[in-house]
């Protein structure tokens, strides 16, 4: 049986990262769990595929339609700071901005880099950066939000989807919030929004946007917002929003949903209580105790008992499944592996229902069980078995070598082989169904009679078949 400590490390890396390879697991030996959490929270290490090499080989990854998701995939596959990428993914799911309307992926990539830079800082600062992020401003039409004629889109969504959630403010608050954000725009907004609407690349490609405050169209009059009164600007509104208990609860529930256990979709939160109200209370407390600092809330979450006890209560998102599988398979384990295959693999996440940089709406993706449709499940199983079942992949070759070496003395039982293969791909609790399924792979009479206690020679082909079966199992869909 795998030790509790090992199981906990695998759990932590599944949630705060994209899984863990057997070698990475070895390197965690002897490190206290709390220290592992601190390492994850503090890590700003670079990736093994540097940006300059990526851009030399894929010159279009700066800006092209298929390029930015592929670039982000490289980052997630190769990063040595997986929590940084995971937090970027977390915020991308909440502050969901889509290129389908922007037609300016470099601007959207700047937003994702902002999540990477500020995603674990004070929530007030993140919300301020978001409110000045050109991709968000164009996405929600704030360039058309003028003192003479307000556009409520951003004012509404910052309250409904980005901070407090439905039911915690009034329609008047939305209008007053929108007034505070009048004039928060992008430079050359008329030309830039026209190019976005027309998907124009002429004459010299897309010009990336930058924030521009236009005092001439900003409403300087007094506003009344969430019970406070003053000549509020967007900064003031953000300060008021971030001091609300509803904001703390909303962000806490999102963090619980992303890191701990699947919740119902966000539109149902108004009427459905949290799955674990005490856990949400703990995170809300941390939000205020640590002055809205997201990293501190994360620390509380990752070291809590409710987190440690939440194994296998989440369905991997398509991106988690794809990136985790590729990190295991080692297909991009050094910078000479940079090639156009990356576009195909990240497109698999699209087919499974999660197209990076193109969420289905401003509401983001519905998670949990909604990731699993019959078509998506087939895609997920095929993807994982295709990549982990390929002995030419460096990571797979290495896993097979490790298992063969570990089990080399005499003949080992099928049960030991199953456990070893399961652990190698991050599965620590193997169900009876999966065990039965593996046993069916073997035609030997002894296996049919003795089941997992049967002794068999451990050969590469055998290991590979069991690995492939493991990543096709129900357990591999969960984390």
């Amino acid at each position, binding site marked *: 049986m795998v030790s509790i400590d090992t199981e906990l490390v695998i759990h932590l890396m599944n949630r705060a990262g994209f899984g863990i390879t057997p070698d990475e697991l070895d390197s965690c030996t002897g490190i206290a769990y709390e220290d592992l959490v601190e390492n994850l929270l503090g890590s700003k290490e670079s990736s093994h595929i540097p940006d300059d090499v990526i851009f030399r080989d894929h010159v279009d990854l700066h800006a092209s339609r298929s390029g930015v998701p592929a670039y982000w995939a490289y980052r997630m596959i190769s990063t040595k700071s997986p929590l940084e990428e995971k937090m970027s993914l977390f915020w991308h799911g909440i502050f969901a901005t889509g290129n389908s309307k922007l037609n300016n992926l470099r601007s959207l990539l700047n937003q994702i880099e902002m999540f990477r830079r500020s995603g674990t800082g004070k929530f007030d600062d993140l919300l301020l950066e978001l409110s000045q992020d050109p991709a968000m401003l164009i996405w929600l039409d704030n360039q058309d939000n003028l003192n003479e004629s307000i556009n409520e889109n951003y004012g509404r969504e910052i309250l409904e989807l980005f901070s407090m959630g439905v039911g915690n403010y009034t329609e008047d608050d939305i209008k007053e919030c929108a007034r505070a954000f009048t004039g928060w725009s992008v*430079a050359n907004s008329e030309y830039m929004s026209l190019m976005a609407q027309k998907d124009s690349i002429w*004459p010299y490609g897309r010009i990336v946007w*930058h924030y521009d405050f236009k005092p001439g169209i900003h409403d300087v009059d007094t506003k009344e917002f969430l019970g406070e009164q003053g000549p509020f600007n967007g900064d003031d509104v953000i300060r008021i929003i971030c001091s609300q208990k509803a904001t703390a609860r909303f962000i806490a529930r999102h963090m619980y949903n992303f890191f701990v256990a699947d919740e119902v979709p966000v539109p149902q939160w108004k009427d459905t209580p949290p799955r674990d109200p005490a856990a949400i209370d703990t995170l809300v407390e941390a939000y205020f105790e640590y002055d809205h600092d997201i990293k501190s809330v994360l620390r509380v979450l990752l070291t809590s008992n409710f987190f440690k006890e939440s194994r296998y209560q989440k369905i991997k998102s398509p991106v988690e499944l794809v990136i985790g599988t590729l990190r295991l398979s080692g297909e991009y384990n050094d910078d000479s592996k940079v090639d156009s295959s990356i576009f195909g693999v990240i497109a698999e996440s699209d087919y499974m229902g999660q197209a990076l940089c193109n969420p289905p709406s401003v509401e983001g993706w519905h998670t949990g069980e909604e990731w699993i449709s019959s078509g998506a499940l087939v895609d997920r199983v095929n993807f994982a078995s295709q990549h982990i079942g390929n002995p030419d992949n460096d990571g797979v070759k290495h896993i097979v070598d490790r298992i063969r070496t570990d089990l080399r003395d005499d003949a080992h039982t099928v049960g030991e082989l199953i456990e070893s293969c399961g652990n190698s791909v991050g599965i620590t609790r193997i169900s009876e169904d999966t065990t039965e399924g593996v046993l069916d792979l073997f035609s030997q009479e002894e296996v049919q009679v003795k089941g997992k206690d049967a002794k068999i020679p451990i050969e590469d082909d055998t290991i590979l078949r069991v690995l492939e079966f493991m990543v096709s199992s129900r357990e591999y869909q969960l984390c």
Partner: protein
Amino acid sequence: MKTVKTIGINSNQPVGRGFNFPYDIAIKEDLGKSRTIYLLNRSNSATRMGTRIQYFTYEEDWIGEFGNPLEDDEAKFTRPVTLAFDNSDQLHVTDEATDEIKIFNSEGKFQRSIKLDSDSQGNGDRFGPAGIAIDSGDFIYVSSRYLNLIQKLTPEGRVVKEWGGTGGGPGEFSMPWGMDVDSQGDLYVADWRNDRIQKFDSEGIFLKTYGESGRGVGQFHRPSSVAVDTNLNVAVADWGNERVQILDNEGSVINVLEGEATLSKWSHEWLDVNLDEREARNRADLKVLDLPDHLKNAYHEASQTEHKFWGPVSVKFDSENQLYVTEHSRHRIQVFEPAS
């Protein structure tokens, strides 16, 4: 140097005029009469549809294209990098994915290819031909990005000299890229990941190094291309710093160019039939650079304006010492001439 003109327009179509992530050019001159520019489009790296060579006059009169993925296997490209003409107007194109140099005549008809041999290292690794330069005797120099070496080949492709190795010392390389040969026959190599230019004689004897890592004047960040004019001045595409630096042959910086693009002939033609964009564009100020602190660097300034270089990947001189700077992310060529 002063700005002369800008050539090109963006296009995401797999055929026809307009550039899509151009990577290098070669100039064929009929002295005193005309200049024809051959431009390599890297295009979309997901599908490679549109990876091809287009050729057109200096005056932006479109002539044609070749090497399209729809063409015969032997003529099409996978990951082409650089171009050079030999003395018989045969265009040589490196392809680092297929480890070969493809050779075309000036009408774009495929002639033959030279397969680069990585076995000289005894390990069968990929060669990855990146830069190419051809001297007055038609000897071909090619840089290997994976093996970190330079090979000197006969026109038929026989290796006559090879030097280099992985490292940062004199004569060693880290992912070398563009190259040029000067009128004395000396070779200049953009030693990309060592952030420097190295100069060798035609036998591979190390002569000197230009530049060092950094963002300051005279320093480079990932230089991708080098070109030498008839006065032996050295132009460097300082790719990672979004600029071009011109040095004298001793290494003193003469000029730093950041780009000053104007509207090309093709751009004017496009705007003439898209009046809404022309009018909105006329009301905009595309040179404003009031960026937040975290965006105050060369990359973001380049991406958020239009006149500055964004991705200056290649530099080439013509016989009159006009400098052509190809920008992959702005899909155009900016042309400069020596200040009088």
